């Protein structure tokens, strides 16, 4: 008491710990998922069994704990925005790829070839006796079929790539989930209640995970007993993990995700985006294209079968196949253009009623009560709108997330100037305690020098 070194020693110890904390903060200044730490000091009261003035003396200082400064609300909001960005940006990537497949603003797009097809029949109706016009009508049909088949194959490719993306992302999520469970185990094994470094590490994994799927984190009093859920499925419960298993349902051509024996559908995150595009968007695009193609094949063949070629052939189909995957022109017509049925009367070469009827299909509303070109234009517009919405949303949510991140860093980020001035303060504090030590030492020396 008084002329002893204990109280000062507590000061020096506290000073050392505070410097460590400042060093740690500065070292982690660029780590975005790091929450800055503060040493929390508490005065130590004198031991029991003292009375009077003695009981009013203090016993030095103690570093109670080193706490992390963070705001859970900002973190949650920032994570959910991450999820939105993930969703829209993976949607945007895949839809962008699909837009390139169609390439409507380039040459020889489907709408160009479709118009060309109808126009070539109009031309043939003026000169049905000339084989050059007949051949050009047949080739217009061939180019259209080839292009549509080509697009269908490319859409299949896109589906395959999307499948690969899906499985790759599921693998990454499972890895992250495993890492989180490992950290949970280490937290359980650590000897303190708040292992800051491990908690920071776990935060980092949670940030990353939330850009893949929309997770709900449920914390409990014991930090190792946190659980992560997506929808109704659990991914992590304490140190136990449940892997996500993707399953492909062949009859519906769709993917289904399950974890811990529960099926779930993520609503945000890049996995949700990939799943949505694969299950819904691509299916719609394929289905609508098929509608157009099968109706076109039907209408053209019905008319063509009732017509006559120059050599009196009748009853021939113009298109073979039934949908966008199998459409092709009748090979007989390619080598024998005189069998192309343009006339509605047998033996009358100048009758071009059939040719005119096929050309008139351009304006006939036979698909969803719209003419084929309008239907196709709406189709491409819809694809473009979907892509546009995804692009805009990526920008919007990125901006929102940036400002949320700013707010989050405002609370938990490290400001180097702040830390440096803290260091100065701690240095002075340490010097003061050291000076006290030497003053006490001098006083003791004076006491001893009496003898």
């Amino acid at each position, binding site marked *: 008491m008084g002329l002893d070194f204990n109280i000062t020693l507590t000061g020096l110890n506290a000073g050392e710990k505070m410097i460590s904390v400042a060093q740690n903060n500065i070292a982690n*200044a*660029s780590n*975005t998922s790091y929450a800055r730490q503060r040493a929390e000091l508490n005065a130590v009261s004198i031991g029991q069994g003292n009375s009077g003035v003695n009981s009013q003396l203090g016993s030095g200082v103690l570093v109670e704990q080193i706490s992390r400064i963070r705001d859970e609300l900002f973190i949650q909001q920032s994570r959910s925005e991450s999820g939105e960005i993930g969703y829209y940006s993976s949607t945007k990537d895949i*839809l*962008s790829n699909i*837009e390139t497949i169609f390439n*409507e*603003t380039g040459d020889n797009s489907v*709408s160009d070839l479709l*118009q060309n097809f109808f*126009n070539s029949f*109009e*031309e043939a109706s*003026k*000169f*049905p*006796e*000339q084989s050059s016009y007949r051949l050009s009508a047949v080739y217009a049909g061939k180019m259209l079929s080839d292009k549509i088949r080509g697009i269908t194959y490319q859409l299949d490719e896109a589906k395959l790539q999307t499948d690969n993306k899906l499985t790759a992302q599921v693998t990454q999520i499972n890895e992250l989930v495993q890492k989180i469970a490992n950290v949970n185990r280490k937290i359980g094994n650590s000897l303190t209640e708040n292992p800051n470094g491990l908690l920071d590490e776990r935060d980092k994994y949670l940030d990353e995970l939330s850009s893949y799927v929309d997770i709900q984190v449920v914390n409990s009093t014991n930090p190792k007993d946190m659980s992560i859920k997506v929808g109704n499925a659990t991914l992590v419960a304490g140190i136990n993990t449940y892997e996500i298993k993707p399953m492909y349902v062949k009859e519906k051509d769709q993917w289904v995700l399950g974890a811990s024996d529960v099926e779930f559908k993520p609503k945000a995150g890049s996995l949700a985006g990939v799943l949505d595009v694969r299950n819904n968007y691509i299916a719609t695009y394929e289905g609508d294209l098929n509608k157009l193609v099968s109706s076109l094949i039907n209408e053209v063949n019905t008319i063509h079968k009732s017509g006559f070629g120059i050599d009196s052939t009748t009853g021939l189909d113009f298109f073979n196949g039934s949908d966008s995957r199998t459409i092709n022109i009748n090979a007989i017509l390619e080598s024998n253009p005189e069998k192309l049925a343009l006339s509605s*009367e047998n033996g*009358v*070469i*100048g*009758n*071009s009623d059939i040719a*005119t009827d096929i050309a008139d299909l351009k304006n006939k509303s036979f698909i969803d009560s719209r003419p084929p*070109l309008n239907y196709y*234009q709406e189709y*491409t*517009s819809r*694809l*473009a*709108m979907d*892509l*546009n919405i995804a*692009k805009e949303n990526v920008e919007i949510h990125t901006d929102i997330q*940036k400002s949320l*991140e*700013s707010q989050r*860093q*405002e*609370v938990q*980020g*490290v*400001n*180097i*100037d702040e830390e*440096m*001035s803290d260091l*100065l303060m701690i240095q002075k504090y340490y010097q003061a305690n050291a000076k006290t030590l030497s003053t006490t030492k001098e006083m003791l020396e004076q006491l001893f020098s009496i003898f």
Partner: protein
Amino acid sequence: MRVTSFDKYQMSQHYLSKIDSESVRKQEQIATGKQFSRVSDDPVKVNRSMLMDVTESRINQYQANVNDTKSLLEYMDVTFDSASDALTQAQEIAIKGASATYSDADRVTFSNSIEEIIKQVVGLANSQHLDRYMFSGEKLDTKPLDYDGTTFTYNGNNNNMDVRVSEDVNVTVSESAAQVFVPALNELVKLRDALKSNNQADIESAMGGVQKETNKFIDNRSKIGVQIESVELLDESYNQVKLDLSTKRKENEDVDMTAAISDFTYMQQIYQATIQSSLKMMQNSILDYI
């Protein structure tokens, strides 16, 4: 408001990349001269462009039809012209034959000339343009008229070929020789026979018949002339519509160069200012002073 060191750097990076991507987009616009290069850049505008495309293609097709129609009609016109010349010639011979100044032997010569004219007109009826018989109705590969010296057999059919030159206007581009040539030819046969038989009354009545038929040919020619004119007017109006469309298209698609270039320059200035200000901000630190 607390601002962390790392955040300052992040924020300026974010803004710089935003300005960058906007600059690249403007550059693309300046280089291509178009406001959009993909449908998703501006779906509404591209849709409008595509609709204009469809209209333009439709008009182009109609214009092609108009050109083909003109060529076919002009050929018919030329043929009718030659036919009416031949008939006028026949009339002159008939007048000579009806007058008493010529002898019976002369009339036999005249009837041979009429026979030649008949064969000439049959040749005109059986003429081909672009490899098709113009006066067989729809049977383009069948010779319209057979002539055996007295009667004419028509081998074509009675439907005519039409070309669609606009939404609801079809122009007929073939004729049936039976309706256009055979009546005149029958009158010529009558004239020939009347000359051969030296029958004054017959010659005069046949002459009247030939006169009537010549007038009909002149009528046909003027009908075709009117059609050619109206088809030409249609062509002109199509050209006008296409001009309008192309102006509207430019409005829709083209970039206002001056605005784009000045936007781009402005953006570059902002970029420079942002870089300089963030550098200044990052340079200031307490570490310079302790």
